[in-house]
């Protein structure tokens, strides 16, 4: 059974009531069909109402759901012949980022993504999906390899941020991320990025400079985690909910700001309720992206990325009207 979230409690309560009536009807041999149908209708409405009007903080909870599909889950649904490749050739293998080569139908591709664990043990091994510099350097190594063999790169973003630790600083966390941004800018193969869960700060962007960038409906993408923003802005991490609302971090909001290309609709209640169906929905968007990008020459791919990012931002001039770049 799926773990329910706080805002889903009324749904659970109604479901319990229906189940209770059903068993009561069987037990006592009383006809409650009418009552049950009425409640089922109510449940349907309540579900639609709840999931269609999710608050940013509800989406953050779904994006963090322990059972939410991860990079490796989607790899297993979307690709065949996947071989995971390890190590940055400099220091270590960072399991917070996974990557490798695979077939996407009959197209060879390189796949890279943040990888969090499914349980505590795996989360410790994968550092809760928070990479060290070696993770970013492994990703870059695989991207350069993809460029050499002219394979498109597909990146799945899902991280609370790059790891804030002493060893990460010593080994150049900043440089590792910065280097990836510059190198991804110039990569001569298509890059498609999909935010599948959490997308926080440079830690997410470090594998996120793409020709096309998409987001799952309930994922979020922001300059920092809501908790981090609350702590910096109001010195109070408990105001995360407010930060989630103020910072415009949900997929529809980020699309509205012109940062992403497509919002990929999620199955009702979130991707974890039907990972296979969710993968299929990703597949539709990914296929369209690749079809479009594969038509572009190497120079056009780099140029397209340049124009895309050059246009991001909003500013104005003294004594002038507002100008969106």
């Amino acid at each position, binding site marked *: 059974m799926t773990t329910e979230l706080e805002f889903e409690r009324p749904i659970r309560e109604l479901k319990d009531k229906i189940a209770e009536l059903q068993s009561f009807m069987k037990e006592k041999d009383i006809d409650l069909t009418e009552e049950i149908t009425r409640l089922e209708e109510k449940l349907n409405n309540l579900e639609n109402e709840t999931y269609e009007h999710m608050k940013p903080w509800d989406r953050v909870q779904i994006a963090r759901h322990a059972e939410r599909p991860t990079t490796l889950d989607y790899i297993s649904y979307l690709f065949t012949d996947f071989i995971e490749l390890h190590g940055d050739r400099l220091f270590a293998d960072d399991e917070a980022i996974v990557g490798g080569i695979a077939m996407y139908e009959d197209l060879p591709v390189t796949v890279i993504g943040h990888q969090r664990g499914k349980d505590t043990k795996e989360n410790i091994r994968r550092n809760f999906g928070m990479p060290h510099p070696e993770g970013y350097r492994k990703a870059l190594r695989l991207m350069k390899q993809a460029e050499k063999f002219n394979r498109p790169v597909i990146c799945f973003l899902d991280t609370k941020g790059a790891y804030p630790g*002493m060893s990460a600083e010593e080994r150049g966390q900043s440089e590792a991320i910065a280097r990836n941004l510059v190198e991804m800018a110039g990569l001569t193969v298509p890059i498609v990025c999909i935010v599948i869960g959490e997308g926080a700060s440079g830690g997410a962007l470090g594998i996120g400079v793409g020709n096309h960038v998409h987001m799952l409906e309930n994922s979020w993408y922001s300059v920092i985690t809501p908790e981090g923003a609350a702590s910096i802005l109001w010195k109070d991490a408990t105001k995360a909910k407010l930060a989630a609302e103020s*910072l415009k971090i949900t997929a529809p909001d980020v699309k509205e700001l012109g940062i992403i290309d497509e919002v990929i609709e999620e199955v009702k209640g979130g991707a974890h309720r039907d990972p296979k169906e969710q993968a299929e929905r990703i597949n539709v968007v990914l296929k369209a992206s690749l079809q479009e990008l594969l038509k572009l020459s190497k120079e056009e791919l780099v140029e397209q990325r340049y124009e895309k990012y050059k246009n991001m931002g909003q500013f104005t001039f003294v004594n002038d009207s507002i100008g969106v770049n």
Partner: protein
Amino acid sequence: MLKDFFSKNAKKKKYATIPTAKIKHDVPEGLMSKCPECKHIMYTKELKKNLLVCQSCGYHYPMNSYERINSLLDEGSFIEYDKEMISDNPLNFPGYLEKLEGDRKKTQLNEAVVTGEGTINDFPLVIAVMDSRFRMGSMGSVVGEKITRAIEKAVEKKLPFIIFTASGGARMQEGILSLMQMAKTSVALKRLSENGQLFISVMTHPTTGGVSASFASVGDYNFAEPGALIGFAGRRVIEQTIRQELPEDFQTAEFLFKHGQLDKVIKRSELKETLTKVLKIHAGGRE
């Protein structure tokens, strides 16, 4: 321990005759100045003459954008770009416009970076200087756009590009748009690099977060001023994450140098000379 506490307090009272610069990034005003590091007292005039470096301990006071430009560029050579560009409030973030207005009044700057072109000992270049007095030098749309336009000018005019960073990182109030400025400046830097053009990064106090994790760290030469705080994550965040005390020099320019992240830590008094050498070597390259 209690005794220590009292004696520290007593000490403070005893020496508090001339005010120390309240926050380290405030440039001292008034006739006399007291070094925040060694408490040495000197004439402000002398301090300014000494490029805002303490004569006693060598502490480098933060320099604002125009002080930096005046200290390096040949007199009268500076032409500023995009001076009129100001921030909007794309997320309708409560209180943001007021904060910007306040900083504009306080600093006489329109935003946290000044860009333009000029010459250093007759070597032409495009320069960007961040200013930590304006919203802690944080990078939102305007900072990203001005830097990107400056890099594009460098590409267009085939000039070297040099940046002095001083920033707390991405600007929270512009959310994801601030994050994307990291990517925007990076695509421009990639083009500059592909053209074989020079990019020098000089990190000054402080250079952290999204600025550290983008253009600041990818210069052909990465330089820093002595004692500058440079790092990705904040010290407090790291201490809370790993639950252990960090070394005193953690995230200083010297710490980064020791760990192979910098080409050179350069004293302010030697900065102009070193930059001139680099520019000279690059100007003399084979066609």
